[in-house]
């Protein structure tokens, strides 16, 4: 039994291809049924996000299942197998598990350490479990992936720090004001980035919003969209007294905000802190404003350097995350390896049970005078004896499998106990996916 991962992501495929192979949550059940219907997957799940679509499978024949997975992706993309092949990566055995763990930890993401992927991994495995597409192996793999993803975020700094300009700006505002509820925002100019920052600030709970633009209609439209109030561009400095956060992004070649009006505003504000975000290039706010007491000015370069710093810190943390992944992988592989012992253990169980039943039947034939209670007592005693006798060989089999024992050693055990060969016993189609006896 093998684990495979076949997929494409932002590193291997352009967005035009990624968007064709991705699918909505509602489609998942049908997709899984289609994959299982190909007959090469004993268990399967599909992870589909905006940056990746990956098929994970527990399979008997790696080559056939990879071919099927590629064909499936090609069908989704309405492309040839050859085209898809050039964008697809394939991981087998422990590499497949390691890849899933890296994905769950966020170190394979476009933005390292992003947390959404862990939820997406968990939901993919849960949805597959609901659809009956995963059983013991992939369910356990999914559990280990979720576990290592959580550990990566709690035991390392892989998810620490904001990594987008707008969220970094909101984070800085929170460092000044704490809870942003009730704080007032003034947006001067209307650029894509300033709107995005304003959206983040609204999500964080800011109170009233003032919008100012050289074109009054644009200011009105933006104010209407965000539930704010438009103020004349010529007099936006009058409002510096009442607001706490100012975002500027105009196309002005000269600074629109200089220290002088700010000094007057600070005096009128009774030194209440004022947080200024200048996203414009060239800058809208004179750099000297940043030297004023109780004024905190951040321009686009400052925000970028904060984001870059957080990203480099996350990059540095990947070493620790890889160590966690290796540890988790070793644990999973030990368990997975143990599955190889399952058929032999099941055979041993069956053989000992058969012997017990035979001896019990013979005894009951020879001693028909036994009462119901006596017969039950004998049955219980024989059961206990069987359990005691079988414990040592089961333990030995498990240890031998974990220590990569040769097939000959396992054959020897079969011979000793008079068991049929492994090939004769293994059920066709679903090898190794049986529940492990406790």
């Amino acid at each position: 039994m093998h684990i495979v991962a076949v997929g494409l992501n932002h590193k291997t495929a352009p967005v035009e291809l990624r968007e064709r192979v991705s699918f909505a949550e509602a489609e998942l059940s049908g997709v899984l049924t289609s994959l299982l219907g190909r007959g090469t997957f004993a268990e399967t799940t599909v992870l589909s996000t905006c940056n990746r679509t990956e098929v994970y499978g527990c399979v008997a024949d790696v080559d056939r299942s990879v071919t099927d997975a590629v064909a499936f992706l090609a069908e989704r993309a309405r492309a040839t197998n050859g085209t898809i092949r050039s964008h697809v990566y394939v991981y087998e055995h422990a590499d497949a598990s390691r890849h899933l763990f890296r994905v769950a930890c966020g170190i394979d993401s476009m933005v390292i350490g992003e947390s959404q992927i862990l939820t997406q991994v968990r939901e993919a495995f849960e949805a597959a479990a609901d659809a009956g597409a995963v059983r013991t192996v992939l369910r356990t793999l999914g559990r280990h992936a979720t576990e290592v993803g959580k550990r990566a975020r709690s035991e390392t700094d892989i998810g620490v720090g904001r990594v987008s300009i707008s969220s970094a700006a909101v984070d800085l505002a929170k460092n000044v004001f704490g809870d942003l509820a009730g704080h007032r925002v003034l947006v001067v100019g209307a650029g894509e980035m300033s709107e995005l920052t304003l959206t983040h600030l609204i999500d964080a709970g800011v109170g009233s919003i003032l919008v100012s633009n050289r074109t009054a209609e644009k200011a009105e439209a933006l104010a209407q969209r965000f539930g704010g109030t438009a103020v004349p561009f010529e007099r936006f400095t009058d409002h510096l007294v009442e607001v706490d956060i100012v975002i500027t992004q105009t196309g002005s070649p000269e600074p629109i905000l200089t220290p002088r009006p700010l000094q007057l505003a600070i005096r009128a504000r009774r030194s209440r802190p004022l947080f200024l975000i200048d996203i414009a290039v060239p800058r809208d706010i004179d750099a000297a404003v940043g030297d004023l007491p109780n004024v905190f000015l951040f321009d686009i370069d400052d925000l970028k350097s904060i984001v870059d710093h957080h990203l480099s810190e996350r990059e540095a943390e990947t070493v620790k995350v890889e160590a966690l992944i290796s540890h988790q992988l070793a644990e999973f592989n030990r368990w997975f390896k143990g599955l190889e012992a399952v058929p032999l253990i099941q055979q041993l169980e069956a053989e000992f049970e058969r012997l017990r039943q035979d001896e019990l039947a013979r005894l009951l034939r020879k001693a028909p005078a036994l009462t119901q209670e006596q017969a039950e007592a004998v049955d219980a005693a024989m059961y206990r004896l069987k359990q005691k006798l079988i414990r040592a060989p089961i333990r030995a089999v498990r240890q031998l499998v974990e220590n990569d024992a040769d097939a000959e050693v396992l054959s020897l055990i079969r011979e000793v106990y008079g068991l049929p060969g492994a090939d004769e016993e293994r059920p066709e189609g679903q090898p190794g996916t049986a529940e492990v006896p406790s």
Partner: protein
Amino acid sequence: MSALRPCLILAACSYLTAALCYHGRWPVRAQRAKTWATILAGIGIAANLGALVAATADVGDWPLLTLRQTLVLFAVAVPAAYLIVLRREPIGLGVFTCAVAVAAVGGSLMVPDAAPVKQFDSRALLLVHIVVAVVAYAAFGLAACCGAAYLCKEALLKRKRLTGFGTRLPSLETAEILGYRLAGFGFVLWTLMLAVSIWYTARVTGDFWGWTPKQTWSLVTWAVYAAYLHARMVSHYRGRATVGLLVAGFVCACTTYVIANYLGDPHHL
């Protein structure tokens, strides 16, 4: 042999290590810093309480009648109040509170032991005066910690270097509000302590006010906090200068507490 000194040394070491943990870089990772720092601060508080018990056993009386003894009480009050009142705030604040506790324990180890202050007719009044004063010092100490956290964070924001320790400090507004509330609480107690002091002095000496160094500095401290509260409450001032008054007020309080004792005061030893 008295257990006072070993207990104080253990408390100082625990507070110091807790301060390092609250910083969040070393010796434990930021994610576990709060747990370890809380445990260490708890050990420090336990050792500090042990020192109070030892001091009680040593003198056979309330351990509140010398500067050294009250410093032991002050040292336990600051981190204990932090763990109770400010435990939900970002852990960076703990660095300052534990530093104050270390300084107080260090002070109690260094100041020479003096004979207990003379007790006149009203022992209860004297004890109320001392306990209220120590609690007020602790409130001012915590307020100054909030002020220091504010100034530290403001400097980091100004330099645009808000990483590591800076992220573990409370926001400017939070630090400012906490400092204001604690200073307000301390000011009420300080005023009460001054009133009791005037009453007690009048009963003992027949004179309400003697302009001793201790009295003078306590009045200066009261005036600084009164100015701060007026600026904050009545004039609605905020920002660095106002917060700076919290730190300046605590410097005056420390002068009143420790230095004024060495400037010639017969009633504070």
